[in-house]
């Protein structure tokens, strides 16, 4: 299978059977685990649009993930108390309302933070995105009205089209369907004119300016799309965990999402989902074995990044003999920095001997 899209379809179809197979294997927890994987896959894939698509190393992606989660949590709290949020927005526990709202809020958050952060580049960009995410984290820690440190619990979620979200299989299929939709969108976007510009920005911002492209609006648009994806994932996660806390916005969560992308394969379609599956499964398995599971997880990540070029997707490709997609970067290799060599620092070509005119 040369085309990565075929892999995506195959894996999604196989994943759809998890709730059918899990009871046969007598492990009902598998469905919950698979749901978390599907949700993290959306978040990681959205980060991949920035990291692998545009070469924008955003280190604060958990901010939008957490914002999405808090939209669900806060609206639920107001639904319970019966008071409207800010006296205007009535609370609700209906996913059909909370999910689009979460996506909207995530997009607006990314628009504001992106508009400021994208004026910088390189290391400053990494630091400023991290700083904004941490600001939001501490804001929600101090919001005692919404649980502060302890977060908010969500108990009863309204059925969606008559489907009970408390049934793990139902929620799983909803999340998987949204993951499939998201991956389809990402595939279209990465191949579109917009995606071509984004890939150009990753490879050489100077070149993009030289062909007449002002890169800022494109980077900002990518930032907003990615923020919306992360917020959708956050909203789903709160429905799954029935709980939201500032931990969703902590910088370690941003790091986890980054690890998923790099582990799975930067700039690939399926990679971030594979990375999410690998990281969640490893965490689950290892933490069942020992309390010091991170001690084992660390070296595994190092080995994958060192030896599987292009992450897990790169390994899959090597095994399947697929052509290396032009977008794929080696695992752990962050996109080239924006620092371009100064023209004048480059050695001038010497005058070619005998090239002088005779006369």
């Amino acid at each position, binding site marked *: 299978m040369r085309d990565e899209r075929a892999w995506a379809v195959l894996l999604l179809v196989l994943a759809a059977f998890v709730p059918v197979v899990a009871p046969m294997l007598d492990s009902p927890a598998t469905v919950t685990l698979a749901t978390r994987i599907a949700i993290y896959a959306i978040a990681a894939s959205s980060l991949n649009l920035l990291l692998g698509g545009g070469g924008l190393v955003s280190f604060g992606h958990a901010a939008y993930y957490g914002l999405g989660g808090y939209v669900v949590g806060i609206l639920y709290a107001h639904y319970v108390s019966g008071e409207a949020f800010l006296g205007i927005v009535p609370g609700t526990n209906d996913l059909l309302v909370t999910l689009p709202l979460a996506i909207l809020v995530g997009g607006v958050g990314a628009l504001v933070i992106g508009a400021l952060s994208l004026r910088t580049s390189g290391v400053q960009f990494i630091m400023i995105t991290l700083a904004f995410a941490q600001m939001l984290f501490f804001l929600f820690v101090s919001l005692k009205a919404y649980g502060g440190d302890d977060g908010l619990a969500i108990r009863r979620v309204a059925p969606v089209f008559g489907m009970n979200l408390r049934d793990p299989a139902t929620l799983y299929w909803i999340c998987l369907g949204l993951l499939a939709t998201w991956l389809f969108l990402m595939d*279209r*976007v990465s*191949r*579109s*004119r*917009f*995606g*071509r*510009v984004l*890939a*150009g920005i990753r*490879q*050489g911002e*100077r*070149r*993009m*300016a*030289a*062909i*007449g*492209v*002002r890169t800022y*609006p*494109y980077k900002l*648009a990518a930032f907003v799309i990615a923020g919306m994806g992360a917020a959708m994932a956050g909203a789903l996660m709160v429905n799954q965990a029935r709980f939201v806390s500032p931990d969703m916005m902590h910088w370690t969560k941003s790091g986890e999402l980054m690890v998923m992308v790099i582990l799975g394969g930067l700039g690939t379609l399926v990679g971030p989902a594979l990375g999410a599956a690998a990281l969640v499964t490893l965490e689950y398995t290892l933490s069942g074995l020992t309390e010091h599971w991170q001690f084992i997880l660390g070296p595994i990540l190092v080995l994958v990044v060192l030896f599987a070029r292009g992450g897990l997707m790169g390994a899959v490709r090597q095994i399947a003999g697929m052509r290396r997609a*032009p*977008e794929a970067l080696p695992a752990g290799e962050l996109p080239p920095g924006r620092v*371009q*060599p100064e*023209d*004048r620092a*480059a050695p*001038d*070509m*010497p*005058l*070619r*001997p*005998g*090239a*002088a*005119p005779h*006369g």
Partner: protein
Amino acid sequence: MAEEPVLSVQRLVKRFGGLVATDDLSLQVMPGELHALIGPNGAGKTTAIGQIMGEITPDAGVIRFMGEDITGMPTPARVRRGLSRTFQITQLLEDDTAEGNVALAVQARAGHGFRFWRDAARDARLRDPARAALAQVGLAEARWDVPVADLSHGERKQLELAVALATGPRLLLLDEPMAGLGASESLRMTEVLRALKERIPILLVEHDMDAVFSLADRISVLVYGHCIASGSPHQIRHDPQVRAAYLSEEEGV
């Protein structure tokens, strides 16, 4: 009435710390003209191109393009007005194919790229002009879908020119298009430029004197950022100051 210059640079100054890279530089490119900018290494030729393109901000002076003052304008806006450059050290999108690189320039010229749905690689409105530009610079058709990282140096130089052409330039700034090319490649590039200058005025920075003297309508000589002479190839060849400062070094070889 005299013809208005396409590009007019007046009293341009750029300092890097104590180094004066551009020293009171004035030059013009007239319609239909190939104006060559020559000078020893470090004379500030590339810095001058950088300032004309808006990649480097000059400390003083005025740059006019088609009569419009563009001195403070950002690079993309200048490109959309018809200024286009090639890089001495190729600046190409390494993971993309040759055709992909040119198609992106076509897309940039066509307007904004905020289209999120259609597959750009199958868009004939991008592909056809891209292929036309590739054919124009003489890049072999078999190499069009090869990733840039796998192209030879000569092919990359051709591709640089194709990308610049795809932006629809009204003035081309070529920064050493022959640098590093073999003798036959240089000759081929010279012929490509000879055909191009019929359509598009060119400011050419080049060290290959055979190419410069066979192509240029006018030559300006830059030494330490300052223009010491400007005139026809014949005048430059016989200018004593130029011979002393620049060409004579080569005569002795």
